[in-house]
């Protein structure tokens, strides 16, 4: 009996091993970054934060080369988010950082993370492959990602801190890939804005007189920043952090009470620092360790004028 069990297990391994080895971790990751934008699907996703669990219905379609997305909260207050008309060919730096490099060359993204295929899994009734992504320095978080074998869709994602504790978890409970591409002609929901502003625009670059003197290696500024004067975002391919700067005193609300310190919620943290000499305060928000948010916010400097 035992022998038979063992041999079936062995056979299973032999059969499945080639399937897993066809794609390397970097190929899988690369597939993950675009599959969620290119496919038509509807899914139920749970989001877990400590003891708190919430669920969402997510729908994504591509119609005439444009993406349509909706996220609908299924418990508590009814909340919808839609996002439509995003050009499918619009390239963003995050996925690009993963696409342009591969693990063997240890360049770009792969200089900062160790990516390993750790095994197979079953999520939302689908076969998945699990990747472990470990940061090589202290300035980013770790990830455990389960990707759909067939499509590369991210079915489960754990974000873990440097000590290995899970900070938040997304997990698909149901995935339907057979939905019509004109499914999402929703109206009456909040639109998620996405403006393309080139960094070359002199008006915006002139406005921004501040910059962080330090960001962790491997983080690249994003070009799709909506308002060049008040914010800038950086990504290393998986982690994203944004720096926001606001005046300490405004005409309509008077002086803002700013206390230096951090906030934490799931994998997201923020760290706020006041710069009284410049009359401004800065907040770094992102899915990064508190140490990173703190060091970046403290490193801000202003152009001398």
């Amino acid at each position, binding site marked *: 009996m035992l022998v038979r069990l063992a041999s079936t297990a062995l056979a299973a391994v032999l059969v499945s091993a080639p399937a897993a080895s066809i794609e390397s971790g970097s190929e899988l990751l690369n597939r993950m970054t675009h599959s969620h934008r290119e496919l038509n699907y509807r899914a139920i996703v749970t989001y877990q934060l400590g003891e708190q669990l919430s669920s969402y219905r997510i729908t994504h379609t591509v119609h005439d080369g444009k993406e349509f997305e*909706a996220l609908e909260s299924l418990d508590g*207050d009814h909340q919808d988010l839609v*996002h439509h008309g995003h050009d499918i060919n619009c390239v963003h730096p995050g996925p690009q950082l993963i696409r342009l490099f591969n693990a063997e060359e240890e360049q770009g993204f792969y200089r900062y993370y160790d990516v390993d295929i750790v095994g197979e899994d079953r999520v939302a009734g689908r076969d998945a492959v699990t990747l472990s992504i470990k940061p090589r320095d202290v300035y980013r978080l770790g990830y455990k990602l389960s990707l759909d074998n067939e499509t590369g869709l991210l079915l489960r994602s754990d974000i873990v801190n440097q000590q290995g504790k899970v900070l938040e978890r997304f997990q698909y409970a149901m995935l339907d890939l057979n939905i019509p591409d004109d499914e999402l002609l929703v109206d009456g929901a909040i639109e*998620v804005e996405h403006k393309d502003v080139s960094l070359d625009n002199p008006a915006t670059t002139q406005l921004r007189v501040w910059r962080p003197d330090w960001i962790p290696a491997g983080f690249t500024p994003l070009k799709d920043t909506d308002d060049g004067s008040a914010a800038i975002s950086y990504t290393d391919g998986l982690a994203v952090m944004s720096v926001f700067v606001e005046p300490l005193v405004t005409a309509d609300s008077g002086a803002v009470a700013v*206390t230096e310190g*951090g*906030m934490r*919620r799931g994998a997201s943290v923020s760290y706020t620092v006041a710069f009284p000499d410049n009359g401004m305060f800065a907040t770094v928000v992102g899915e990064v360790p508190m140490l990173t948010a703190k060091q970046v916010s403290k490193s801000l400097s202003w152009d001398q004028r």
Partner: protein
Amino acid sequence: MNDTVRESLSALMDGEASELELRRILSADEKAIRTEWADLHRSQELLKNESNPFIGWDISSRVMAEIADDELVNSGGTGWKQAVSGLAIAASVAAVVVIGSMGGNMFGGSPQMVAENNGVSGRVYPAQASAAVGGVAVSAQAQASPAGPLLNNDAEARKRFEAYLRKHTDRAAFNNGQGMVSYARVVSQESE
């Protein structure tokens, strides 16, 4: 780094540093000291013909990151902690016991916040206990949170955090490989 510090460091390595030399090292530039310390060890090992597999390791940044994280988690109420220890020094032992036992709940917000604050009350007790017997409350306070307090209970800061997180997610969703799902972070927060 000047030669005096270098000599002091060399003395420390031979176990012969005086108190003055130790102070000199502690007040010198941290990074240069670490490099020099590693170099000294390397050359000594060469001389002795030994090899040490850990020689290239500098775990100090990792240790500092852990400390920063730990202290942030544990530092929800630096302000009132200081006030409490002030009371303790004024020998109001009773007041300390009462406030101390009310612990994190007194300032807790949502259940999640309370859970985070429990770490605070856990840390406060030893400092207060030593203050009550005329001990070292001040030095115990001195180690509180170089990373700054967690502002989770500050309503203004929380509102700002939510607004920023929303804007941040608008950018993050296109770049973190997760897409629209990232908005669950924002929506779940608003419905709290």
